[in-house]
């Protein structure tokens, strides 16, 4: 039985389209703590007006990378430039032009929704009149106008999340960096956030986000990298990654051990990749008609579906829970 090995030739396709400026550039970026290296030399570029995704399991190094991008964690090696400035130089300049959405909703719970935005705007030296105008604008954008004068501990979790995202726009950033923006949101609220992020991108804002949700990455990201254990495993457009690394269609099935042996000859001459994971068996059809006229042994469970980013993700990062 061939157990697939995610040995992927990286087709990085680095050349920037001529009209697109580089907004973020990481070269061999590293971060090490006392006795462990969280980011082990990653390189990527984010172009203007692009939505770029950083995908990876828990502990992959996503949040560490985000913290370095936000200039709150010094880099240990390599280089990182944000909006043309190195994060080791004048970081006030970088911070004044980026919008940051952290994983936690770190709002001021004693203040109202509007006051949260006003106080935050003040850190950017935006005067009160202008801050209030912008606050009303972003509240409208994220459908929070009704809650303008509520205290933030009176609004729902989903609203808090939207408020944190709205807050990140108060300085009219050129780049927004979001760490798991829609974690904890219900499907409707998630749609609102996605729509607004797409609108912002269309207005010229560059977006960099991390997510666990493959659907989110598929919906939003123009390009993405998948990170595992501090290294980039793959980079590309979501659709291309799916085609290149898993294919077109997937059959997932549970099959008794004995019958698995019968499977191999059946698919031997077809462009099919097989992967075992626990009691599950995955067949990845790497061309459009890979499964055409194929009769497989009857398993206990069988599903044929389109290949998705989730398949790419799981192939590259492993199906085990590697949280340490």
């Amino acid at each position, binding site marked *: 039985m061939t157990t697939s090995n995610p040995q992927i030739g990286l087709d990085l396709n680095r050349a920037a389209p001529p009209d697109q400026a580089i907004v973020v550039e990481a070269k061999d970026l590293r971060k090490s703590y006392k006795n462990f290296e969280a980011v082990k030399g990653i390189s990527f570029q984010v172009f203007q007006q692009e939505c770029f995704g950083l995908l990876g399991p828990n502990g992959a190094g996503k949040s560490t990378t985000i913290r370095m991008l*936000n200039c709150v964690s010094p880099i240990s090696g390599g280089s990182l430039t944000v909006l043309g400035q190195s994060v080791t130089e*004048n970081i006030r300049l970088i911070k004044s032009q980026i919008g940051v959405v952290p994983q936690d909703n770190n709002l001021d719970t004693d203040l109202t929704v509007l006051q949260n935005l006003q106080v935050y705007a003040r850190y*950017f030296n935006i005067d009160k009149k202008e801050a209030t105008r912008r606050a009303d604008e972003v509240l409208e954008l994220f459908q929070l106008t009704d809650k303008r004068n509520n205290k933030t501990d009176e609004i729902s979790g989903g609203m808090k999340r939207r408020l944190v995202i709205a807050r990140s726009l108060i300085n009219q950033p050129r780049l927004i960096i979001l760490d798991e923006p829609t974690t904890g949101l219900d499907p409707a609220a998630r749609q609102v956030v996605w729509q607004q992020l797409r609108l912002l991108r269309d207005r010229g804002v560059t977006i960099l986000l991390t997510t666990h949700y493959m659907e989110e990455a598929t919906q939003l990201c123009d390009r993405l990298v998948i990170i595992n254990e501090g290294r980039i495993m793959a980079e590309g457009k979501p659709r291309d990654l799916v085609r290149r690394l898993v294919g077109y269609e997937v059959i997932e099935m549970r099959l008794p051990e004995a019958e698995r042996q019968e499977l191999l000859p059946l698919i031997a001459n077809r462009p099919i990749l097989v992967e075992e994971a626990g009691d599950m068996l995955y067949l990845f059809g790497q061309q459009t008609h890979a499964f055409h006229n194929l009769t497989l042994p009857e398993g206990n469970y069988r599903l044929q579906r389109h290949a998705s980013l989730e398949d790419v993700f799981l192939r590259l990062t492993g199906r085990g829970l590697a949280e340490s």
Partner: protein
Amino acid sequence: MSKNYSAQPAMTLPRKGLSLPNPFTLGTYRVFQRNRDVFLKLWKTELWPPIVEALLSLFAFGFGLGVYITQVNGQSYIQFIAAGLIFSSVLFTASFECMFGTFIRMQQEKVFDAIIATPVSIEEVVSGEIFFAAVRATFNGTCVIAVMAVLQLTPSWWVLLVPPLALLTGFLLASIAVVVTSLVSSFTSFNYYITLGVIPMQLFSSVFFPVSQLPENVRWVAYLSPLYPAVEAGRSLYMGDIHAGLLLNLVWILALTVVFYLLAVNLMRRRLIK
């Protein structure tokens, strides 16, 4: 509109080495404003206690204890204790603000994380916290002076210099509290500093009785206390007893302030910037 950030002091994230920040920046003021705004939202519960506390303590000590102790070093006991209570109030306000207040903002509410994602630096966050605590402490200490003034028990105009001294003392004591906060992992650890730091400082810094009453071989405890020079200098200003020794007290407080402020900023940065 946004100001040009290149005009402000450059800010970098050096990995090692001592940070020697300027505590008087716009960013520091922004953090101060944030704390002030939240405080004033809660003014109904926050503003009256220091005034009532001043009244109660002065009543208890002055008219209770004062009956038995009529004179201390030639002053009436109520005046002696008033000067002490000003700085006792500064001690408690500054210490608790920068222990529990700072810890909650840092650890539970994650306010610091929100602020350092903006152009404000961690050094400015720490400085803003200390400034706010110092101003709050000064307000509470000044409540004691106000009550004494109403009772016409302030003998000298030099008393007007007590609030500035309280501000400096508050800054020092808040810095020490931030040092403690930067080292603890939970609330309960504050007990060590409260029991072994704050309470002995209050008891043995000449707040309630002159240090000369202490047995000679334990007087050093008072001389080590950062509160002691403040109480001594504050009491002299309160009584209008101006002499050269005041300057020595002031220099000592200033030196301690510089040391603990730098420690506070650097330890906090070490804790939060990883």
